[in-house]
């Protein structure tokens, strides 16, 4: 499973738990439009860290939090293995 697929599947799981209806997941989707609040993103980042072994937003000191879903996915894809 690709990183992208894992991220999408974790988001769908959290959306179901949080009773959030996700719009179609596309790269240009603004994170604001996902319906996720900061708590949902905190949960997502924690679970992805457990699954992928990395938290790109804590590693890089000056990492700006992404604004689109595409940027969010790339933050995980670009972490050196």
């Amino acid at each position, binding site marked *: 499973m690709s990183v992208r697929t894992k991220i999408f599947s974790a988001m769908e799981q959290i959306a179901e*738990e*949080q009773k959030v209806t996700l719009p179609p997941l596309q790269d240009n989707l603004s994170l604001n439009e996902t319906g996720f609040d900061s*708590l949902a993103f*905190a*949960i997502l980042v*924690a679970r992805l860290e457990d699954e992928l072994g990395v938290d790109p937003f804590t590693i890089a000191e000056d990492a700006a*939090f992404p604004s689109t879903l595409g940027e969010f996915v790339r933050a995980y894809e670009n972490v050196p293995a």
Partner: protein
Amino acid sequence: MFPPDSIALRHYLGQGPKDRTISDARHSVSLTDIVEFSCLAGRCCDLSGRSVLIATSRQLLSALAMIELDGVARRMLLCPPDLDWERLQALVEQAGIDTIVTDRPLSGSRAGKYTVIGIDLPDRRATRRTVDHATEWLMLTSGTSGLPKIVRHTLDGLAGAIIAEGPARYGDATWATFYDIRRYGGLQIFLRAVLGGGSMVLSEPGEAIAVHVARLRAGGVSHISGTPSHWRKLLMSGATANFSPRYIRLSGEIADQAVLDGLAQAFPHASIGHAYASTEAGVGFSVDDGREGFPAHLIGRNRDGVEMKVVEGSLRIRSKRTARAYVGADAPPLADEEGFVDTGDIVELRGERYHFVGRRGGIINIGGLKVHPEEVEAVINRHACVQMSRARSRRSPITGAIVVADVILTAGTDEKCHETIRAEILTQCKDSLAAWKVPAVIRFVERLEVTAAGKLARTDA
């Protein structure tokens, strides 16, 4: 200094049945005729007015030393087993100790300026002793980080709750506790045995639960106490069969409904009570109705000499059972100006009952919203497949922290059910807790660490 009406511990030994004993895994000592013996090679007279550290390898020897020294020494500091010498030395300085009673060899440099008196099982006739001191009982707090604080109690204060209940009520009891008797919770049980005319079976460090329970059964233990963590471990062990105490007591941590129900199921014939006590605040109250929390009417009234109030969410207690003071040069005041001890335990009124939600210092801050790990655990523990759980803080780049939970499932839970159980626990949490208190991640683990004081280890607290 010389209170004529002061009653020393050993005066209680003539009461009750004639076959009273105190035992550990290796020895059983008669409590009935111990007054005529000495465990200090008859040197008890030398200890009159001294400030004594009792540092023994076995609880049994500490018990005998307490009996022999109460009313004789100026003060005695009870040393729990898990203290290293460096930390102990700092505490000994603070407490102004001049004499060490121990069964361990002390090298010259360590013995130094102290008089060292050896202790062993009682075998020599004691010289007649008189009670000439109201001995101060010094105990250490059970905090996990840094140097513990020393608190000063009197026997009257320590025994306050026992006297209020009428000690004779337990005349035929054989007591046991999972605690070490050199800690407050364990000492309460030791005093119940001595004051009430009963016997006692001591715990043994490192002893397997099944072996311990076999010893409790063989010793005829009828009354037994421990922390909820101790009890969860016992329930998990499956070693409860054929053990049927009449009285089960929980203290030292929050007794949630799940552990109370679990005990009621495992011990259908026992009466089950949970007590609120701490080394500093003494015994506040005990609750025997099988429900978590305590009735709201206990607050604001003077009941058996105990007054309680809730200020800024935390329980405050004023009574003669609280410790008298912290000991040491820079010791902070133990009570406020009105004599109330702030327990640091946060309570919440729900209907007619107060519930404990956690420690003030243990709060997790999630983007400014607060949660006590204990309130999350109480909800998780309600799931039928959960034996024990620990909620803790995990750093988050988004909210600063989030709640995660480590969960031990009951033995024999099929791994195939893990995902279903995880979803059920989450649903349960969502139904009873605010969104930020619901664990972001639930991990199933084999074990959770319990501290030497019998409490769930909270490294992030």
